[in-house]
């Protein structure tokens, strides 16, 4: 059963279609990678699915139209990690992660035992506990990205929508974040993650949804099948170097195709 589904989403900006009849659904236990060239509408689709952007079409959360949900209830179900998320004030890391509990806060304040446990767990999962007392604005970009992911996870969402959570991270922490997301999905969370790194996407996602530049879904299938279909190379306009390691397929962007060969 899908927890969050978008059907026939259409969205245009300045007369140019960004999304043109897109379907995407995600269920518990899935880690769906949302991939595609720049400007294909990946972030737009994520915003629409998070209820932050109104578009034509239908989005349903737990089989109920998203717009019928109360804001607070929706915020408890869906965690959203903005691309390049940052904090305007030099709060301590722990304060930032604590803000993630906002959707659960009682009107009269105070942090309950459940809040503290969720905050500590999220900080541990994202490996930011050692920065707890440091100001978030004093961290490096990669460290800050992990803090922001911890903020989103502290809310204990059933669904996580993450926009390029691995961008700007070193390989070690890229793998750490992707292993974390895959692990959360294996534990029953529904994850949709926008990625630019095809190697990470192919290796860690259970399904890949490929958007093309016309804002349509070019493919929505298992990573190995997507690789076999050749759609990746066509949509990105590149030649891929394919291989396998430990029984899993991988692909490296090798060279650009001449523009007329591009899909």
């Amino acid at each position, binding site marked *: 059963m899908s927890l969050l589904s978008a059907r026939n989403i259409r969205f245009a900006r300045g007369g140019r279609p960004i999304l043109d009849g897109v379907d995407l659904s995600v269920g518990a236990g899935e880690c769906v990678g949302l991939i595609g060239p720049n400007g294909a509408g990946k972030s737009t689709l994520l*915003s629409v699915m*998070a*209820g*932050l952007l109104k578009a034509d079409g239908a989005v349903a959360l737990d089989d109920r139209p998203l717009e019928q949900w109360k*804001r*607070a209830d*929706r*915020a*408890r179900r*869906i*965690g*959203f990690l*903005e691309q390049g*998320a*940052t*904090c*305007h*004030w*030099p*709060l*301590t890391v*722990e*304060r*930032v992660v*604590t*803000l*993630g509990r*906002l*959707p659960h*806060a009682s009107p009269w304040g105070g*942090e309950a035992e459940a809040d*503290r446990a969720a*905050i*500590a767990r999220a*900080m*541990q999962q994202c490996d930011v*506990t050692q920065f*707890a*007392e440091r*100001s978030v604005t004093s961290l490096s970009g990669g460290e800050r990205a992990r803090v*922001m992911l911890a*903020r989103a996870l502290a*809310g204990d969402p059933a669904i996580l929508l993450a926009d390029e959570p691995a961008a700007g991270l070193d390989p070690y922490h890229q793998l750490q974040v992707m292993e974390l997301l895959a692990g959360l999905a294996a534990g029953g969370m529904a994850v949709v993650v926008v990625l630019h790194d095809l190697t990470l996407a192919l290796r860690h996602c259970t399904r890949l949804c490929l958007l093309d530049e016309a804002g349509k879904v070019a493919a929505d299938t298992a990573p190995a099948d997507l690789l076999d279909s050749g759609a990746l190379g066509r949509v990105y306009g590149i030649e891929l170097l394919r291989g396998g390691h430990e029984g899993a397929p991988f692909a490296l962007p090798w060279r650009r195709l001449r523009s007329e060969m591009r899909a």
Partner: protein
Amino acid sequence: MTAVTHARLAAPAKVPVHIALLILFPCLLLASFLIGPAEVPAADLLSGLFSGQGSPAALIALEIRLPRALLGALVGAGLGMAGAALQGYLRNPLAEPSLIGASSSASLGAVLAIYFGLSATVPLALPVAGMLGAALAMLLIQGLAGREASVLMLILAGLAVQTLAGSLTSLALNLAPNPHAALEIAFWLLGSLTDRTNDHLLVSAPFILAGILVLAGSGRALDALGLGERTAGSMGVDLNRLRWRIIIGTVLAVGAAVAVTGSIGFVGLVVPHLLRRVTGNQPSRLLWPSALAGACLLLAADILVRLLPTNDELKLGVVTGLIGAPFFFHLLLKTRERMR
């Protein structure tokens, strides 16, 4: 690790600032009540306060000193709270209440009441005209910025309203019917708590208090907004509601304050700025301390006004500026050191 987390959450940092403000505030309130041009012994004033009408001391206590002290505290609290809320909302430490046109439009309303001679003939015409001015400005900003206004549109609309109100105020000063009116307008613009009565208190207090409460309720949403508008939206914050909450709260608190005291600058800018670091930089934790510190600053300035042996009583807006600016210099130098 977990133990550390628990300790931090159980005991929020920097409690002493709140306590210091809570001690300082009643002391200043009492001092403001006891100090004045008429040299009445403190004991007579205090017994007059509780015994009711009758003696001259009781009259001074109830009709002059009490409204002045309470009004000073309320106006300062309103300015401090509005400054903290606006800096949080605009995510800019240099924002202040005048940015969305609340103070200049309230000033314009009051100045027009002086210009047309209403203030001399109709009781309370001045504060009421001031509040009407602020309310009109709010409607104008709402119309200009539109329903789904961004922060930038809000600032631009506020700036437009502020410019218009400022120009019209200057026009009134320029075309003042006689030199006396011009002087009255100019002095009024400098801000003062002198000769404010219980009527002034009663006409403005409900609005200032309502404004303070409206703004105080925005703390959590302001915290979330610090993570960006989209993230705040995903955390359940209704951004439209928050924006109107900030505008309405500011216009109520600042508009009503300016309507009875005249323009008092710097409080809304400097107070939140001074407290930001000691409250851990979190917008929600800055709100009430800023209100308290604003009240303290205004009371202190109003005490100073009455103590300084000048020919003409110094105007409050002048003194808050003179107190506030050196603090600001100090803060800038400290910030520069940290940035090195």
